[in-house]
């Protein structure tokens, strides 16, 4: 009570009451929002530089997407997440039909048929499918109030995740499809699985992977993985991208070559430099110092979102944050690692930094949901 002694008495009671909206806003952990904002701004600046040799500057469009994302963030923040979870099956249904629709009337881009073209904007439903799947999985697993899951429950969760994943894989967008694994994985690990279940799952995925390699993958996908394993064998093929990316990152050294002065990015060495390889542009122009700044921001996002999960009001809140954070972490860690050659190249963009409308919007929505959980941790139901 003493903390609020200097506050005008007319609103003092609002702050004193733990369930009053003002007081609750003050108690929200704003870490994820701060990180998201800072990263988005850095992203805009970097996209502008990366656009130098592209036919159009992607900066203005991305700025609009960030604005739209901020509005979307505020909207989902204002609706109690329990109500959103109650609607999860409907979202899930809608998104599945969209995924089917995009297979029929979608627009192809870069080998994947995963876009809806709506006039000047293109929408990628797979980005929103991740959110809908996270919501439905959370709703399903929140109802199980036991320390460990049964095989049957794991299988059900697997089916919920698997259906949209297969649809997206049919769009030939393997990178996006793979992003559903971390949702399931994160939730299962938190909900509790036993060692023997993990062992069996590992064995099964090994068999699946072998089958996929031989029968499921296309030649270019196999060559990408091979090039990762030995990048110098095929310098102008798939390994070329890793190599150019590493040259870009490495030549940045401590402080970088200066804004818009990166030879690798400005001279078109880098592929997809405004999307998947945006961090290579940043690393080249701002050096290791720049990389440390964004890694710290990602760390801030993850740790504060983790804290939000840990102090979540109920199982549903905790699991919702976990599901969203899992995708976020996976995107971030994978992309950052891939750019510097630690993992094979696949089309996984970097949250808040990479150009992309649907992707930016989805990340803003996820941030809004995470803050939503923290905002409602005192609400009595």
């Amino acid at each position, binding site marked *: 009570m003493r903390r609020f002694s200097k506050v005008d008495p007319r609103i003092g009671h609002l702050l004193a009451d733990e369930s009053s909206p003002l007081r609750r806003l003050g108690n929200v952990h704003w870490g994820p929002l701060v990180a998201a904002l800072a990263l988005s701004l850095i992203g805009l600046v970097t996209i502008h530089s990366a656009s130098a040799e592209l036919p159009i500057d992607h900066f203005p469009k991305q700025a609009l997407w960030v604005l739209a994302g901020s509005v979307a963030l505020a909207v989902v923040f204002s609706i109690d997440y329990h109500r959103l979870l109650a609607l999860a099956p409907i979202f899930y249904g809608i998104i599945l039909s969209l995924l089917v629709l995009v297979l029929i009337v979608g627009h192809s881009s870069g080998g994947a048929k995963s876009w809806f073209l709506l006039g000047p904007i293109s929408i990628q439903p797979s980005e929103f499918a991740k959110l809908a799947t996270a919501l439905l999985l959370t709703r399903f697993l929140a109802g199980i109030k036991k320390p460990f899951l049964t095989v049957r429950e794991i299988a059900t969760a697997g089916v919920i995740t698997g259906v949209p994943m297969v649809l997206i894989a049919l769009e030939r967008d393997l990178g996006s499809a793979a992003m559903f694994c971390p949702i399931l994985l994160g939730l299962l690990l938190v909900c509790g699985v036993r060692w023997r279940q993990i062992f069996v799952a590992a064995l099964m995925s090994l068999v699946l992977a072998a089958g996929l390699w031989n029968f499921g993958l296309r030649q270019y996908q196999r060559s990408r993985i091979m090039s990762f394993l030995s990048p110098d064998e095929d310098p102008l093929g798939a390994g070329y991208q890793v190599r150019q990316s590493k040259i870009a*990152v*490495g*030549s940045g050294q401590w402080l970088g070559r200066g804004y818009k002065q990166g030879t690798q990015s400005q001279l*078109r060495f880098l592929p997809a430099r405004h999307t998947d390889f945006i961090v290579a542009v940043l*690393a080249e122009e701002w050096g290791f110092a720049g990389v440390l700044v964004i890694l710290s921001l990602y*760390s801030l996002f993850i740790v504060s979102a983790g804290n939000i999960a*840990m102090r979540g009001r109920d199982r549903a809140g905790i699991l919702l944050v976990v599901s969203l954070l899992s995708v976020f972490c996976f995107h971030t860690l994978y992309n950052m*690692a891939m750019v*510097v050659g630690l993992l094979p190249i696949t089309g996984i963009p970097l949250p808040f930094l990479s150009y992309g409308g649907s992707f930016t919007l989805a990340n803003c929505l996820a941030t809004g949901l995470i803050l939503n959980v923290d905002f409602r941790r005192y609400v009595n139901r």
Partner: protein
Amino acid sequence: MKIRHHREELVRRVGGLTALTQAAILLIAGGYWSVQIAEGAYYRELAENNRLRKLTIEAPRGLILDRFDRPLVENAPSYSLLLDRSLAHDLAVSLAFASEILGLTPEDLDKILASHKGTPRFHPIRLAQDLSLAQLARFEVEHLEHPEFEIQTEHVRLYRHAHQTAHVIGYLGEVTNADLARPGSPYVPGDLVGKKALEGLYEIHLRGETGERVVVVDSRGQLIEEFDRLHANSGRDLRLTLDLELQQTAAELLAGQVGAIIALDPRQGEVLAMVSAPSFDPNNFARRLRQEEWREVLDHPHHPLQNRVLQNTYPPGSIFKIVMALAGLDRGLIDPENTTAYCRGYSTIYNNRYRCWQAAGHGTVNLRTALKKSCNVYFHQLGQKLGIDQIANYSRKFGLGRKTGIDLSGEKTGLVPDSTWSLEARGAPWYPGETISVATGQGPILVSPLQVAVLMAAVSNGGRLVQPHLVQNPRLHGPLPDERQLHLEEEHFALVKEALWSVVNEVGGTGVAAAANDLNIAGKTGTAQVITQERRIDNENLAHENRDHAWFASFAPVEDPRLVVVVFVEHGGAGSKAAAPLARKMYEAFFQGRSSHRPSASG
């Protein structure tokens, strides 16, 4: 209690996973450390030695050819000097070296560099263009010492018959910021684009698509390998309807004068010659005109950039009597033989005295004589009978008062006045006396020489209003719009044509100066007054800018018209003296001396 226990279990697992991600972030930071710091120097060197350079492959602009494939515009090589600042050891030394060869001061070059402040250091900057071969050789010889300088071969437009075709062909100029900002713009700053006339109008057709070579170069600018190549697509040629020889004849005839000559084929409207004088040299524009050269063109008292054939309008003078005659015949107001007027040198209408150019008078005249001798009195009376609104109707039928639709921009519509126009534009009712002036092509009526040519073509071809055009490639202008049929009596055209023949070929005709041997030319002179009759004195004694404009509009041969020639001489005096002889020379150039290789205008 049990639920509480589960919660702690969940929280513990979340904590564990969060910690795991932080470990992963540390690991990734380690990855960046090893690439950027531990191996940073190695990768920096790779980046330095392994550079891509974009070299533009120029797409040659399409040629412009005359109707017999003789080039009017070509492309000639030109050499530019580029500087890659990232390769210069000491920029001051480099600039001193270059400025000495170029004959400039290092400060001049500094200024150029300053204007490229935002450009990355490794993007070459153009320091100079149009290098002489001697300069070129010096840079090539010193290339090892000064690898930062590069020579780029470009092409500049070479206008072969510069002054003679300038108004038709136009010129190139540096692309504007507005053009650059347009979405999908294929241009880069510094590009030359078509600005005026055909170069501007057919920019997309003439311009090719530039290609690009991406090459890997080392830190000394030496080419290591080609990395990527995007082929250039040359621009396409433009074949004109113009006949170069006739065009040159027209230009020579107008040399030293102010005026315009247009020659077209009355059958389809193909323009065979179009000259406006004074003219300018578009080659100067292609080489990025200097300020003072611009001023010289802009401040010229006779505005050489204007195409007088279609961008200026003038009173038609007595040429308008052709429209009057056909209108009177069509309305049945005059009978070619029996309607006569007695000219005693002036007519008195509405208590005003309107003069005939022949102060002594023409005596009794019928339509044929009135046209032949260009008697004003006859047409004063006809004008009074027709009234201004009928006159305006027939003028518009002949295409006056609107654009002809030629494939050049900036065409003026001119003015066909009527009573509505008077109320709207002047806020006063039409004054009937003005009708009498308009009847002889004076007063507020304004036409362009091109409109007169179309009018003459319609008279010569029996009433078809053709669309004049300069480009032959039919795909470019699309199907020509339906020629408009005037629907006037064949017989009336025949009468007027015969009268126009007498203008040139009978004693007493005003156009006898245009008469040529073995060729039946028909025409009409016109003299457009610049100052009112009351103040006028003998034309020769007037100041140049107050002298009459001279017109001569004609076609030949009368029996099967192949060529329409309109001559206009600004402040040239009487059409019979200043304009008609030029037309004759045009016909002579076209019909005589034309042998097997040019059997007919439609070639």
